[in-house]
Each structure stands twice: as structure tokens, then as C-alpha cells.
């Protein structure tokens, strides 16, 4: 049997099995899920180097599945994160009810993500896309709380995206008579599609929803923050990358390498669209960052931060130069890693403490050191501070923007990355630093099966911070699939088109040496007699705080900044959407008043309709 089909089958039957096993015991599904992801992953890694293809026909439509380098790149994200998340999940979900439905959807969404990337035709692409949507939707609403707020928006926005995509798909089919992706690309090359721009924009809308691009992002904060953390890491890490996956295909494969650049209209429109997208990405990043730093809930903060990070990725793809695309794909992978780790860490806090509200937690550093370590490393990567891998992606993005002449965009990006330090500090301080409260004194570190996946991700960030070439290799292959030729990369040196470069090995060596020197000095100087003190044991300007004096600082964390940036907070897009939705509903409510409930009115409608038709139709037919 074909391995691709086998993997899909494994995930889908695993989903069924996980659901059924929950009827026996609530503990089983977690293990079933772990086993399934493991089998799938092992199967994939055993065979992904071989050429793989499968095609079959259903209801007269040809479906094709195949592996290529671009696919493999994303498959790494899906399987890597999938397996770690399912390992993490076993203990995380331990005491929760209804694990059957959770794990069934968990596996379904992982399986369908794999399905999306291996699809070489639009139909199976769309089918898997929708399965992914609804399975993730079911997890979003899985806890059954706040459905109206969280679930409906997700589903509605996803539906808008999916239907935009579906429109594009059927239009493509009506033009070229097939759903094959390859045929589509060929037709683009031959300029055989009349309304190519419409189709592309529709497709982009579809992908933009999943990539949470402004203004289609409003589902994301709620959806991300409402899912169990073991899934959120996949949701934000891998699932949102499906939007990136699709955007890459459209923006690069269609816009950049369509061979139609000589066609003036086409070039104009495609460039314009790319620019708009890039700016949308930038605005997304900026606004989402601003919203992230006023959040009180750690998960929500991370959710907004995900949106911001996806904004960077979209910018990279939209700019479309070699370096930009490389940075986008690199950031996509790194975002999957550090956001996966962060959500896991926050999930660990949630499990051990019971809440992710940062105004209620503080000072967990000594209680959960490993979790803190992971969070710290991931946050450093997220903030893009050297020597971790987040910096690599950021550097490439900046260089790409500057060398490409997008100088204002780079300022927007820089603004949002700088503001990102604020929320980075917020989450570190909010959860781990600050006063160690008595109510969290009993908290223990999360179990090993939860810590190990997080630590693996953190280590990955550290290693790729010095040797990003590990990740560049699959990216370069993937970019070749997209149409770039001779993509060069170096294991540890970053360089831009102007020839400027950064040698990461030097950087990390210097940092390492300096750090070690300082460490030795500080640790051994006057080490004897040093005593550790609690966070209560402080001197506020020489005053010793009283026993029950409140020393916790969590509320209104960045109030001064909020005040300074007040105009930017004034208009909430979510609010605009909600107003529009309410207005529409009122309009619809008015519409249905035509059904007055009086039988006679209905009879009058019949007669009136008859007369109207007689008049109108007489002229028409």
C-alpha cells in the first residue's frame, strides 16, 4: 500500500479508535493518539526520501497525492510538533473528561494537515482543508465554554476563507477543466487563465484567514486561547502554517514565477497585491503586538503574539525575494518551535496552578524551573535576540526588507518587534518572576512527559541559533520547488545580497566566553556565607516591607505605554466586526418580518406574485 495513503489512513482510523477507546476508559485515548502519531511519524521519516505519488479518481474527479520538497518542509513541522504535542498531551489532559472527542479531533487535524500538504489537486486540498477546519473548531469549542464568543467567529471566518478558496477552485476548474495543481501552474505559465488575478486573490483570502492576517484575524485570539494547550501548540504552530503553505504557493509559484512578468497588467496587479499583503502583514504584526501586551491572560497574550509572528511570515512571502522567502520559511519553522514550546509551557502552568491569568499567578520560577527555562529560551527566540534562532529569522527578514527597499515596512516591523519585548517581559514576569505568593507555594514542576517535549524544542532553538543551516537545508530544497534557482545557504553564516554577513558561530562563541567569565567571577567571588532570600525579603528604599504588604505588581502592567499609544487602541477591529454583525442581524430580523403570520397576507402574496410574474415574465420569455 502507498505510504501516503497509509499515513492518512493511520491518522483517520487512529481518530476513530481514540474516540472508541474513550468508551472503555478515559485514559486510553491519549495513548492511542501518541501511538498513532508515533506510527505516522516513523512511517513518514522512513519513507520520505523516496519518490511518492498516488492518484485515484472519485466521482469523476482525479485526485493526486505526492511528496515534494516543499511538502516535506511543512511535514517536518507537522510531525515534529505533532509527536511532541501528543507526548505532552498524555499527562496534560490527565484529569480532563471527554478525552475521546479531543483526541479524535487532535488526530484528525494532524492527519488532515498532512493531507493538505500532500494534495496535488484542489479537491483533496479543499477536503483536507475543511476537515482541518472543523476538527480544530471542535477542539476550540471542546470545553463547551463561551461557544458563541469563541467558536462561531472561528467557524464563520474560516467559512469565509474556505468559500473564497472554493470559488477560486471551481473557477479554475471551469477554465482549465481539471483540478490538478500542476495543471494550474502550467496554465498560469501559459497565461491560459483569464481571471487569474481574481482567482489568486480569492485563494489568498482563503489562506489569509488561517494565517490570521488582518483583518481576517479576529477569530484567532479567542480560538487559540480557548483550546487545551497541548493542541494550541499544534494549532498555532502547525495549523496556522497551512495558510503560510498556501500563500507560499500563490505568492511565489504563481505571482513570482508565472513567467508572466512581461505582461504589464499582470505584473502590476500581482505586485500590487503582494505589496498590499506585505503591508497587511506589517500592520497585523504591529497591531497584534499592541494587543498582546495589554493581555492579562498568558494564553491570550501568546495568541496575539502568534498573530503578530504570522504577520512577519506573510511579509516575507509577500516580498518574495530569495532572502525574504527564506526568512519567512525559517520564521515559520521557528515560530512553530518556540510558539509550540511556549504554549506547552503555559499549559504546564495551567495544569499545575489551574489558571493562566497572570494577575493571579506570580513567582513560579523556583517552583517550575524547567518550565521557566523553556519559556525563557522560547521568549528570547521569539523576541529575536541573539544568539537564539529567532534572531536568524528576524535578521534575514530585516535584511530582505532593507535590500528590497521596503524601508517604511521595516520600521513597522521593527516597531512591532521592539514592542514585542514588552509582552515577552510581561509573560516571563507575569508567570515566573515577581513575588512568590503563598497560594502557589504548593505548586510543583510539571511531570517529565510534559517537560521533555518542551525541553527538546528549547534545545532545538539553542542549536539552530548557532547552526541555522540545519533548518536551511530543507528550506532551500523547498524553495527550489517553489521556483527559486540555486538557493545558497551556509551552516552558520548569514548573508544578504549586498554581501554583508553575520557569523553566528563567532557570535555565540563570544557570548559564551564572556558569559562564562562573568559567571565564574560572580559565582565564586565571596561565595561563602551567601544566603538565598525570599522575594519578601527586600528593601524598598531602605524600608522593610510589612508582613502583609502587597508587593505584587501585575495589574496595568504597561499602563504608561497604553496611555502613550491610546489612539492605536481606540478602534478595535473585533468591535467593528461585531457591530457589523449585529447590524446585519437586525437587518435580517427585519427581513423575516415579511412572514407576518397572517394567513391572508400569504394569500395576498400569492396573488400579487402571480400578477407580477404575469406582467414581468410576459416580457421576458
Amino acid at each position, binding site marked *: 500500500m502507498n505510504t501516503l495513503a497509509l499515513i492518512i489512513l493511520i491518522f483517520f482510523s487512529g481518530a476513530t479508535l481514540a474516540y472508541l477507546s474513550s468508551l472503555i476508559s478515559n485514559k486510553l485515548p491519549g495513548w492511542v493518539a501518541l501511538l498513532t502519531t508515533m506510527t505516522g511519524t516513523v512511517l513518514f521519516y522512513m519513507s520520505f526520501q523516496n519518490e511518492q505519488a498516488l492518484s485515484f479518481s472519485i466521482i469523476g474527479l482525479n485526485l493526486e497525492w505526492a511528496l515534494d520538497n516543499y511538502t516535506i518542509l511543512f511535514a517536518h513541522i507537522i510531525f515534529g510538533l505533532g509527536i511532541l504535542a501528543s507526548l505532552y498531551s498524555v499527562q496534560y489532559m490527565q484529569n480532563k473528561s471527554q478525552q475521546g472527542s479531543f483526541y479524535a479531533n487532535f488526530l484528525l487535524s494532524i492527519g488532515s494537515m498532512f493531507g493538505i500538504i500532500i494534495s496535488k489537486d484542489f479537491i483533496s486540498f479543499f477536503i483536507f482543508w475543511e476537515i482541518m477546519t472543523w476538527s480544530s473548531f471542535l477542539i476550540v469549542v471542546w470545553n463547551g465554554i463561551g461557544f458563541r464568543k469563541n467558536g462561531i467567529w472561528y467557524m464563520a471566518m474560516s467559512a469565509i476563507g474556505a468559500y473564497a478558496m472554493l470559488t477560486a477552485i471551481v473557477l479554475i476548474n471551469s477554465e482549465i477543466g481539471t483540478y490538478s495543481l500542476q495543471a494550474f501552474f502550467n496554465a498560469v505559465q501559459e497565461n491560459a487563465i483569464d481571471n487569474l488575478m481574481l482567482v489568486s486573490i480569492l485563494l489568498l483570502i482563503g489562506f489569509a484567514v488561517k494565517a490570521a492576517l488582518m483583518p481576517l484575524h479576529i477569530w484567532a485570539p479567542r480560538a487559540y486561547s480557548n483550546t487545551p494547550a497541548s493542541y494550541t501548540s499544534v494549532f498555532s504552530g502547525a495549523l496556522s502554517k497551512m495558510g503560510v503553505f498556501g500563500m507560499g504557493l500563490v505568492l511565489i509559484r504563481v505571482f513570482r514565477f508565472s513567467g508572466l512578468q512581461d505582461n504589464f497588467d499582470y505584473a502590476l496587479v500581482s505586485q500590487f497585491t503582494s505589496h498590499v499583503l506585505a503591508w497587511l502583514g506589517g500592520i497585523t504584526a504591529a497591531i497584534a503586538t499592541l494587543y498582546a501586551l495589554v493581555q492579562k491572560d498568558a494564553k491570550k497574550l501568546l495568541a496575539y503574539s502568534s498573530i503578530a509572528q504570522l504577520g512577519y511570515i506573510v511579509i516575507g512571502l509577500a516580498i518574495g525575494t530569495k532572502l525574504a522567502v527564506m526568512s519567512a520559511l525559517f520564521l515559520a519553522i521557528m515560530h512553530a518551535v518556540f510558539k509550540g514550546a511556549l504554549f506547552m509551557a503555559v499549559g504546564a502552568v495551567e495544569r499545575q496552578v489551574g489558571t493562566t491569568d497572570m494577575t493571579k499567578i506570580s*513567582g513560579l*520560577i523556583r517552583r517550575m524551573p524547567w518550565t521557566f527555562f523553556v519559556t525563557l529560551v522560547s521568549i528570547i527566540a521569539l523576541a529575536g*535576540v*541573539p544568539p537564539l534562532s529567532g534572531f536568524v529569522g*528576524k*535578521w534575514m527578514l*530585516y535584511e530582505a526588507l*532593507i*535590500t528590497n527597499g521596503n*524601508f*517604511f515596512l*521595516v*520600521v513597522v516591523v*521593527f*516597531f512591532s518587534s*521592539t*514592542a514585542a*519585548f*514588552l509582552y*515577552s*517581559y510581561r509573560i516571563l*514576569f507575569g508567570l515566573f*518572576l*515577581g*513575588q512568590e505568593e503563598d497560594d502557589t507555594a504548593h505548586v510543583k514542576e510539571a511531570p517529565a512527559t510534559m517537560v521533555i517535549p518542551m525541553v527538546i524544542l528549547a534545545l532545538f532553538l539553542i542549536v539552530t541559533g548557532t547552526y541555522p543551516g540545519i533548518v536551511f537545508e530543507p528550506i532551500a530544497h523547498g524553495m527550489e520547488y517553489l521556483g527559486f534557482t540555486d538557493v545558497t545557504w551556509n551552516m552558520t553564516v548569514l548573508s*544578504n545580497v*549586498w554581501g*554583508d*554577513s*553575520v557569523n553566528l558561530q*563567532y*557570535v555565540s562563541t*563570544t*557570548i559564551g566566553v*564572556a*558569559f562564562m567569565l*562573568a559567571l565564574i*567571577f*560572580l559565582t565564586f567571588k*565571596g561565595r561563602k*556565607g*551567601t*544566603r*538565598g*532570600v*525570599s*522575594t519578601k*525579603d*527586600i*528593601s*524598598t*528604599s*531602605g524600608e522593610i516591607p510589612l508582613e502583609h504588604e502587597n*508587593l505584587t*505588581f501585575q495589574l496595568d502592567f*504597561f499602563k*504608561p*505605554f497604553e496611555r*502613550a*499609544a491610546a489612539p492605536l487602541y481606540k478602534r478595535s477591529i473585533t468591535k467593528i466586526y461585531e457591530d457589523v454583525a449585529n447590524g446585519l442581524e437586525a437587518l435580517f430580523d427585519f427581513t423575516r418580518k415579511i412572514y407576518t403570520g397572517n394567513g391572508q397576507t400569504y394569500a395576498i402574496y400569492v396573488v400579487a406574485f402571480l400578477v407580477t410574474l404575469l406582467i414581468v415574465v410576459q416580457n421576458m420569455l
Partner: protein
Amino acid sequence: MEGIGLKILGALLTTIMAFAVGMTYGGITRKLTARVQNRVGPTIWQNFIDLVKLQSKKTNIYHGVMGHFAPMWIITAAMTVLMFIPVLHPNSTWYSTWFPNLTFHGDLIFLLYMMVFGSLGMALGAGQTGNPNSAIGVTRGLSQMVGFEIPFVLALVALMVQYKTTSIQDIMAIQDQSGVWMMFSNPFSFLAALFASLGMFRYSPFDIVGAPAELASGPVSEFGGKYLGVMMTGGSIFAFIKLTLYVDLFMGGAYSIPELLIKTFALYMVPVFYGWVSPRYRTEQAIRYFWGWPTALGILGVIIAVW
């Protein structure tokens, strides 16, 4: 082998010089400020004296791992940045013999990010001490940073876009060739950067981060002894770095140590002077300040650069 040994020696020398210059400038500032305020003031060596005092004190308090790491992060960041910044002009004889440095080209983006590294460590350390005043100081500092980074980046982007390079050495070389300093050829960008430097040095009116009077020195309030000493060292090096960076970018770099000292001191006096005549801003006022004229100047600079 010989090359590496020399390099390490050069690195040490650079560090020591940066430290000494930074400390001295701090001392001079204290003295000058006092004189302006009609006080006697400390000697200009007061910073060194303070440092010796701090290092000779025995530190009995251990605030936890982050508190322990915070000074290290600062000093690490300071040293690393120093290693990647051209202290002297590459063409100078001093450079090749005594300050070979570990520099490659001194990539600007890298430096921008590396400079944050220290603040982040500081913030984390301050956070762990549990003193709310420290955390408040940190949030103010970070917020203010978002403020002044905008004009600063705009200025840098203007340079990078205009001269199609992200390397400091290249920018210095360009100034060398044209014979015009960037502060004259790109005046708006220079002004924007200069305004940004006001925030960077955190003198009045942007000193609410440390807020000497009411917050017990803000982020560092819980640190003492060896920790505070190391932090001071790091801070001094950083002051030197910032000044050197500005000199490199806008004043054509320096060919010799005295030239460097003159240029940096001249630059250093700008925030100091500005501070003497200004009251303190609230954080949001500070941010608004940076997002106002400095940003406008920066944008103007970029537009001119692209033209």
C-alpha cells in the same frame, strides 16, 4: 595561534579602555551636573571609587538564579557588542596594531538586537527580586525603549538604504571617500538619531526609568555589592559603545584614541546638556515625545535618502 592570541589581547585592551572611558565620562557628568546645580559634587573619579567600594563589599544576598544572571547578561552583552563594533577606523594604524577587534563588518541589525540582550537580562533579574519598584522601572524602561527605537531605526534605515550596506565599516568607508560626515550629508537622520540618543542615555528628562528619587534607582534597587559593581561596569561599557556607534555612523569614525575621545565626549554632552535644562517626563510623555518630531525627522531622512 599567534593571531588568536593577539586578538584576545586586543579584545581585552578594548574592553578595558571602553570601561575606563565609560566610567570617566560618568564621573565627569556627575561633576559637571553638580557644578551646574551649584553644588561641589564628587570628583570625576567617583565612579571608580564607587566600583571599588562595591566590589570590596561582601554580598550576602542571593536573589535566585535570574538575579544572579542579570549582571552577567549585561556584561556579556556589553562585551559582545564591543567585540563587533569598530572602535577605531579600520584604516587607522592604531586599529591594526592595538584594536584588531573581533569585528567582521559590524552588521547594524545585529548590533541593534544585541544591545537589547543586556536590558533583557537586567529586566529578568530585576523581576526575580520581587521588588515591585524594580518591575515598575523595567516596564517604564521597556516602554521608553519602544519610543526611542523608532527614530533611531528610521535614521539607521535611511543610512542603510541610501548607501546600500548594513555594515558599519562600509558606512565609515563611504564617509571617508566622500569626505563628508553623515551628520552633514544626512542631517535629518542624524538629528533623529540624536534625539533617540537622549532616551538611550536616560538622562533627564527621560530618567523616569531609574527615577532616582522615588523608585530607589528602579530596576537595580535590589542589587548591591558585586552584582551592582558588575552592572556598573557593563553600563559604562555600554555608554562607550553607544557613543562609538554614533561616532562611527555619523562622524566618520576615529583614527586615533584622542580623536575618538573628543568626538564621543562632544556627543555625550548632548544628552547631558539637554538633561540639565529639562524636567522629568512621565513615561507616556516620553514615548509621545519620541513619536513626535524625532520620528518625523527620521521619516524625512528616509525620504531624502531614497530620493
